């Protein structure tokens, strides 16, 4: 792990050591920036650095070439320290065209490094990006270090022996750029070369052209003079727990978590879904895991998707559905059906910007109200959230456990950022997770028709009887049922009782979940910063830095949003102030006020971009004026 520089690069011993670096790759949607970023991520992870990524791409598949709205970016923060966010301000910006520079330059820190492909800075491209004058020729970049390279023509030169068309040849310029970046940050080319060979196994000329471009970019760094301003940086491996690691996205871990959860519950997994950004990757991944007996059903719409999952659960399987906010809205009536028929179901919401179609590819946490409150009638259900790509695995398993044990739909809130972002993940030992096999009614007890609403006195969960079992024939449905017999009942006292029982069942889950812990800091004090979901990273880093400066501030991260952990109220009331940063207009703030009559200070952001550590640090400072010790 210590071999930071590739062999043959030994002559460059003048590495500048850095704790961490943020690079933003930006280019046209067709420039392959997501691919460049994810390959750089792989190589960086293999070098043992901790990292976090932020793919930031437009909703259009291929916007007109060269336009600002077609810019696709991939940001990676990596270092030898603990990395929890994709970084506030990039240190390095790779801009593949003028539009990318126009859109991304504002993110770059002052004094940061800009690498531009001058080959793409034609008059026409400048115009499309909205530049009146060439920014490479005026003082636009005065505050930055700039490396101007004609990447386009150097790529053409590098791949010329493969006889590709100019258009095809230019498609390798992302690999040329990646080669240079790998050299600059001392990362290995080997895993990427292997990946290219396998990806283009059927088109060796494309594989070879890309490899040639990658090598040429790398060699360029190697042979260029120092006067060109190109330096190398050394970022050592992070100190992490021993174990076997890999990089994962939240979609991957979610899919694996569902498979693991179904296995632990000893149930067949039936996943009903309808394509929607940014939730579709879970459908794609599960569709590719048929060797585990997973059944995926691409329904005709969101409603059919959840209804098929409910039907599967009625049949004794584990029904799961997945969508994003607008799709969850369509599923709402069916969620109510699963609540009243008390069937297990996992509903995953990969949140995105709303309302309506909103910002499909940007992240928000604005579906918390929808999850907790958003149904007709008194319809409580457990709501869980995930905080990072790796976390999805465990939360998915927990959602399955609760759904099966309590015979209830469970809402699992993740978001587009977690779904797409990558992080190194220590592989879990699955066989150490305690199984929670589902149990089914075996035979009828008592006289008359079988009553499917017999309850476990401890959990209040109803009995689960599988169609196909003789003697347990029963009917369930959306009409209110008698507490005593399970038949339709319009009795007023019965409805009161059933409503209370359903609520008590969900509330009782607080006895079955871990007590709320303090993620960082003390169990009481001046200020608690309380978050949920994907804001974990920036909050934790901000609190950590402020604590290092002597501020009395702690971080509390809530995974269980309904019901809340039993001790949460007491814990929060032990702080003089509670601040809640959220990527919405204050939904957890409302929930905390609602449940605990707690005064909270909201910190809200709905720009489609994650919180910056700096944003949260300055809010902490503001709320702890003069309290630094």
């Amino acid at each position, binding site marked *: *792990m210590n071999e930071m520089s590739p062999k043959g690069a030994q002559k460059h011993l003048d590495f500048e050591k850095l704790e961490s670096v943020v690079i933003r790759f930006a280019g046209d949607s067709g420039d392959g920036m997501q691919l460049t970023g994810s390959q750089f991520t792989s190589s960086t*992870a*293999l070098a*043992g650095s901790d990292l976090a990524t932020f793919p930031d791409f437009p909703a259009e598949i291929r916007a007109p070439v060269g336009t600002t709205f077609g810019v696709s970016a991939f940001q990676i923060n990596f270092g030898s320290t603990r990395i929890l966010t994709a970084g506030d301000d990039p240190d390095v910006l790779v801009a593949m065209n003028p539009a990318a520079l126009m859109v991304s330059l504002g993110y770059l820190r002052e004094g940061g490094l800009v690498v531009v492909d001058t080959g793409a800075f034609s008059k026409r491209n400048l115009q499309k990006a909205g530049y009146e004058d060439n920014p490479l020729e005026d003082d636009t970049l005065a505050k930055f270090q700039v490396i101007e390279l004609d990447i386009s023509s150097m790529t053409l030169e590098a791949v010329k022996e493969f006889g590709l068309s100019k258009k095809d040849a230019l498609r390798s310029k992302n690999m040329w750029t990646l080669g240079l970046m790998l050299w600059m940050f001392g990362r290995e080319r080997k895993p990427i070369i292997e990946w290219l060979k396998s990806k283009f196994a059927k088109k060796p000329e494309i594989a070879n052209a890309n490899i040639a471009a990658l090598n040429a970019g790398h060699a360029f760094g190697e042979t260029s003079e120092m006067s060109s301003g190109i330096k190398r940086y050394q970022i050592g491996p992070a100190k992490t*727990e*021993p*174990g*076997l*690691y*890999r*990089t994962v996205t939240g979609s991957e871990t979610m899919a694996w978590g569902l498979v*693991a959860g179904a*296995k632990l519950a000893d149930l*067949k997994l*039936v996943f009903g879904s309808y394509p929607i950004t940014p939730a579709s990757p879970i459908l794609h991944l599960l569709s590719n*895991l*048929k*060797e*585990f*007996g997973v*059944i995926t*059903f691409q*329904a*005709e719409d969101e*409603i*059919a998707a959840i*209804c098929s*999952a*409910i*039907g*599967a*659960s*009625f*049949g004794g*399987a584990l*029904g799961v559905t997945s969508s994003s906010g607008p799709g969850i809205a369509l599923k709402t009536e*069916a969620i109510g*059906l699963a609540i009243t*028929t008390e069937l297990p179901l996992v509903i995953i919401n990969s949140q995105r910007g709303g309302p309506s179609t909103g910002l499909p590819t940007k992240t928000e946490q604005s579906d918390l109200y929808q999850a907790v409150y958003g149904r007709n009638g008194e319809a409580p259900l457990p709501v869980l959230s995930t905080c990072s790509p790796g976390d999805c695995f465990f939360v998915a398993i927990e959602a399955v456990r609760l759904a099966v044990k309590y015979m209830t739909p469970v809402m699992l809130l993740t978001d587009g950022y977690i779904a797409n972002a990558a992080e190194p993940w220590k*592989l879990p030992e*699955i*066989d150490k997770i305690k199984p929670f096999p589902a149990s089914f009614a075996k*035979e*009828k007890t008592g006289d008359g*028709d079988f009553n499917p609403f017999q309850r476990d006195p401890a959990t209040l969960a109803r009995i689960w009887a*599988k*169609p*196909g*079992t*003789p*003697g*347990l*024939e029963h*009917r*369930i*449905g*959306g*009409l209110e049922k008698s507490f005593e017999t399970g*038949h*339709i009942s319009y009795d007023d006292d019965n409805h009161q009782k059933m409503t209370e029982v359903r609520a008590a069942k969900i509330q009782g889950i607080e006895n079955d979940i871990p007590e709320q812990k303090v993620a960082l800091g003390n169990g009481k004090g001046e200020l608690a910063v309380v978050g949920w979901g994907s804001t974990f990273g920036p909050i934790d880093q901000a609190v950590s830095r402020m604590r290092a400066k002597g501020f009395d501030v702690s971080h509390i991260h809530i995974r269980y949003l309904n019901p809340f952990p039993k001790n949460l109220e007491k814990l929060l009331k032990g702080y003089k102030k509670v601040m809640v940063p959220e990527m919405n207009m204050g939904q957890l703030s409302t929930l905390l006020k609602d449940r605990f009559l707690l005064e909270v200070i909201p910190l809200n952001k709905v720009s489609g971009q994650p919180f910056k550590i700096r944003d949260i640090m300055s809010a902490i400072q503001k709320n702890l004026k003069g309290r630094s010790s």
Partner: protein
Amino acid sequence: MTEHVSPEKLTAKDFASDQEVRWCPGCGDYAILKCLQRTLPELGTRPENTVFVSGIGCSSRFPYYMATYGFHTIHGRAPSVATGLKLANPDLDIWVVTGDGDGLSIGGNHMLHTLRRNVDLNILLFNNEIYGLTKGQYSPTSHLGTRSPSSPFGSIERPVSPCSFALGSGARFVARTIDTDQKHMPTVFKRAKEHKGASFVEIFQNCIVFNDAVFGEFTNREAAADLQLHAVHGEPLLFGKEREKGLTLNRDKLALEVITVGQGGKTIDDVLVHDETNPILAQMLVNMAPPDFPVVLGVLFCQPAESFETSVTKQIAAIIKKKPGASLDRLMRQGRTWEVKA
């Protein structure tokens, strides 16, 4: 009901739940319920392997009255719930009970996709051309000019033909029957159950309260012989009191015509023979309407193909065979991993 061991001993009573039936007196649904309770034991059906899934509407109360498994779901979504159930357990015999509003209005999309996927479900669509449970509004099958609370001056929407819709959706079994015809209904139910794949059955069902006798023109005893044509595969398409009338194909107009055998030089050889595997003929038959044509009943189209859940199960089995002993642990450890040493 656990004690039943030999299938032949079951009777209609074994399929009736202990719940009081609450349709309006004289509703056509009673006749359908009785018929199914009577027919299912005759077909060797086991209550524990049978599930009735319904949506919302008068007809959708059906599952509560059957002593089988049942799921009264939400408006229009019964085919979707039934699809998930069938995927979870392909061995179940699943009946979907729906109506013209439930199945063709709010649930029209699911009906289309369930039929084209060919999920092995027996779908019974009770068509009464009216929204009964919400007190009588016109439905997507109401004929033009239907007066109702929401169309006091007569409806101005052209209706959909359920069987034509089903054929257009790619259904591979389409049949039609009448609630009051206790002899004909069982034969259609039998065929529907035997058919592997989605079976679509339209039942003309009389709503005595909000749309009484809407099908009276061809269901009343006097008119029945002249305005009902019972199609039987391989037999000539004949009707009339003396079975003297028949359907023939006018080749110039590419249209059906009614002829009388023995008149105008027409013989029995001019009468079309019903071929239930012919989708074009089926489409022509289902669109016939009085007074110029009889209403066609029976199995109008039947052309089996592999059912959806069978294909799903087969594909999974083939992949498991190719990649036996799947291990999540192994899957996660594949590809680019690295070891951090202590």
